[in-house]
């Protein structure tokens, strides 16, 4: 059983890799074109550095604390990672509570749906005022930005259960807890993962914007700082790192999805 599950996982992964190779080549071509365009047209470095210059910048050993990359990377990764974990756990738990109690849902859900339609990032300066500088502030901002999509997605999944199925198990005297664990939660899994994917992008956005408006470390801080001094290559170096962090988090979520729901990847790719 375990072995066949692993086989299925590897098979579907291989298939999606094959499908993605073509796309990867096109994106690679785009970067090569950029690289050549910068060399051929002699575009000044402060306007648009070549991708190789930006990459190179990551590996120049410098005493300058501004470009202590590891320090800044770890700060941003910490903010993004922690906020993602907190957001997904809290979001799923609260959505479950709302699905469990109708009374609670009636009061809270309209507020959540309303807040979810607002540009939440605008609250960032107020959080900063309340909590001061630091990583925790950025985590809270990222949490607020990512929380509502997770709750609403999870709740939608918990509720989108076939009524017939519920009627059947009710007739068989299933308890509310049993219905939750055996029917509602498995049914919600695809919705939860799509919520987590949205959340992974939003967590990064929240953390970076937090670092923009006030922080003394992190990749967002480097970008803002480099912008003041018109030092463009480190901006692109940071962008590369931020994109990598985003891709990594997204891949982790997708991998977890494949492991927890191996049947889905088979359905999606016939």
């Amino acid at each position, binding site marked *: 059983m375990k072995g066949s599950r692993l086989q299925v996982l590897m098979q579907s992964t291989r298939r999606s890799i094959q499908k993605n190779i073509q796309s990867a080549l096109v994106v690679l071509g785009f970067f090569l074109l950029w690289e050549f365009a910068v060399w051929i047209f002699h575009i000044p470095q402060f306007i648009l550095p070549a991708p190789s210059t930006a990459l190179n910048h990551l590996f120049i050993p410098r005493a300058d604390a501004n470009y202590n990359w590891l320090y800044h990377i770890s700060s941003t990764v910490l903010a993004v990672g922690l906020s993602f974990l907190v957001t997904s756990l809290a979001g799923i738990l609260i959505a479950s509570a709302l699905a469990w109690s109708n009374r609670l849902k009636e009061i809270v859900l309209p507020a959540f749906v309303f807040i979810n339609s607002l*540009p939440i*990032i605008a609250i960032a300066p107020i959080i900063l005022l309340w909590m001061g500088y630091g990583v925790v502030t950025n985590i809270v901002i990222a949490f607020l930005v990512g929380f509502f999509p997770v709750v609403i997605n999870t709740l939608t999944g918990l509720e989108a259960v076939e009524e017939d199925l519920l009627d059947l198990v009710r007739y068989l005297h299933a308890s509310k807890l049993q219905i939750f664990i055996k029917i509602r939660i498995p049914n919600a899994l695809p919705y939860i993962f799509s919520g987590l994917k949205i959340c992974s992008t939003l967590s990064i956005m929240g953390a970076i914007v937090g670092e923009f408006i006030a922080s003394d470390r992190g990749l967002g801080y480097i970008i803002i700082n480099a912008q003041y001094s018109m030092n463009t290559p480190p901006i692109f170096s940071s962008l590369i790192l931020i994109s990598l962090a985003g891709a990594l988090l997204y891949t982790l979520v997708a991998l977890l999805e494949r492991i927890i729901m191996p049947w889905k990847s088979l359905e999606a790719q016939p």
Partner: protein
Amino acid sequence: MMSFFRKVLYFILFLALWEAAVALLGIKEFILPSPLKTLSHIFVPQLAAKYKWPLHIQATLLEILASFFITALAGNLLALLITWSGFLKKIVTPIIVFFNSLPKIALAPLFLLWFGYGLLPNTLIAVLVAFFPIVINTSTGLETVEEDLLDLVRYLGASKWQMFVKIRIPNALPYIFSGFKIAATMCVVGSIVGEFIASDKGLGYLLKDAQAFIDTPTMFACLILISILGILLFGAISLLESKVLFWMPNVSDRSAV
């Protein structure tokens, strides 16, 4: 589903509780201003004059509307082009998907460096943030057409142009509107973040500026006005959707994502 009336009632109850809590617990204004205090910063003339509300609202509104129209036009046009040409699709789609997965807001400072201060960089930041979801939604809509239907009209000798105008575009409309709705929020977010980072007017600028002076009521007032701008744009799109897609039964729950 709860009635609209009850929702409004809850909202008013929430504001009343907030007002009472601030008064009873003696919460300091710079930590959490009461709703009335916040509103007074917008509506009491002596207080409001200092903040030049019309100027800032106008700047932000202009950025949001300009970025929305640019995104809506350019995004749908590109989606039409890549659906029309198979070759273009092969080249452009991977790049679009790639950029869609990046945290584009991180590019905002770069735009300031390229385009200087003012409305232009903020509008462009908003365009960048909102553009890719529109392209992806619209092209999804243009492509998810029943194959049988296409086969039928092909057999009847329909031209590619006819298939686009009579089948693909009407089919894509719900997706286009759901893209518009995503873009509406994104345009507000992009404009505001642009104003946070560097600007000399706009609600985002005022919000950031008020923070430096620990002027919390003004910050909340900005937050309210930003929300209202967002809700108005969203509402206008929903209204247009219900007029254009009057034949669709439940307009609200559709999305390409």
